[in-house]
């Protein structure tokens, strides 16, 4: 079974700023999930109203499945590493 990433390492450096951070996604993830659920429940009536007025045929599928699909995508992120450096700076991003 695939699990979402538990750590995210970010390193950023340019001529003015520089920082490196380890984000414990296993701690942040549940908090973000609960907050998103709360925001979703609050915004649901407005979203339904907006959907009624802006409905276009064929759009129900992306609206319905986009969130689970992006969560699934997130589960395949462990192992992803982006390390780009040029004269303007350095960006490093790694999911564990």
């Amino acid at each position, binding site marked *: 079974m*695939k699990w979402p990433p538990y750590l995210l390492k970010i390193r950023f450096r340019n001529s003015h700023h520089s920082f490196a951070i380890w984000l414990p996604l296993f701690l942040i993830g549940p908090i973000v999930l609960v907050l998103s659920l709360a925001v979703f429940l609050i915004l649901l009536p407005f979203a339904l109203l907006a959907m009624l007025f802006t409905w276009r045929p064929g759009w129900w599928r*992306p609206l319905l499945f986009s969130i689970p699909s992006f969560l699934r*995508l997130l589960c395949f992120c462990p*192992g992803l*590493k982006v*390390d780009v*450096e*040029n004269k303007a*700076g350095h960006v490093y991003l790694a999911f564990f």
Partner: protein
Amino acid sequence: MGENQKRILQMLAEGKISAEEASRLLSLVGEETNRGDDEGAMKKDKPSPKYLYVRVEPKEGQRHGSAHEGFHSLAKHGRVNIRIPVGLIRAGMKLKALIPPGVADDVNKALKEKGMSFDIHNLKDEYVDELIRALSETEINVDSEEAEVRVYAE
């Protein structure tokens, strides 16, 4: 019996080749068939790649500055090191199912404008699997005066 063997026997029956020649040709065809089977088995046994790597390394002469300056200042080409899990590519490809019909047509039109005559509706899961299997045998190496570019899967 394969098509080639039948053709050889046909030629023998018609008297176009001698029995000795037919025997030699049949043994050659047999060897080729066995080799093909072995290659097929090797392909099946080969594990599919786990990561796709994209690496751009500037040549030594293109690097200026030193590490204690904080970061390398790279002249024209930056250094790129990207590792993408193949599962992420596979999952990303599946997102095409979420593209609304009108948008898919726009994507096709944009691809065509860029010279790629490709219909995104035709992108099927089995093609993606085949593409990913083929990645294990693909390696792109570009060695220019300024940088070395490598795209490969492992």
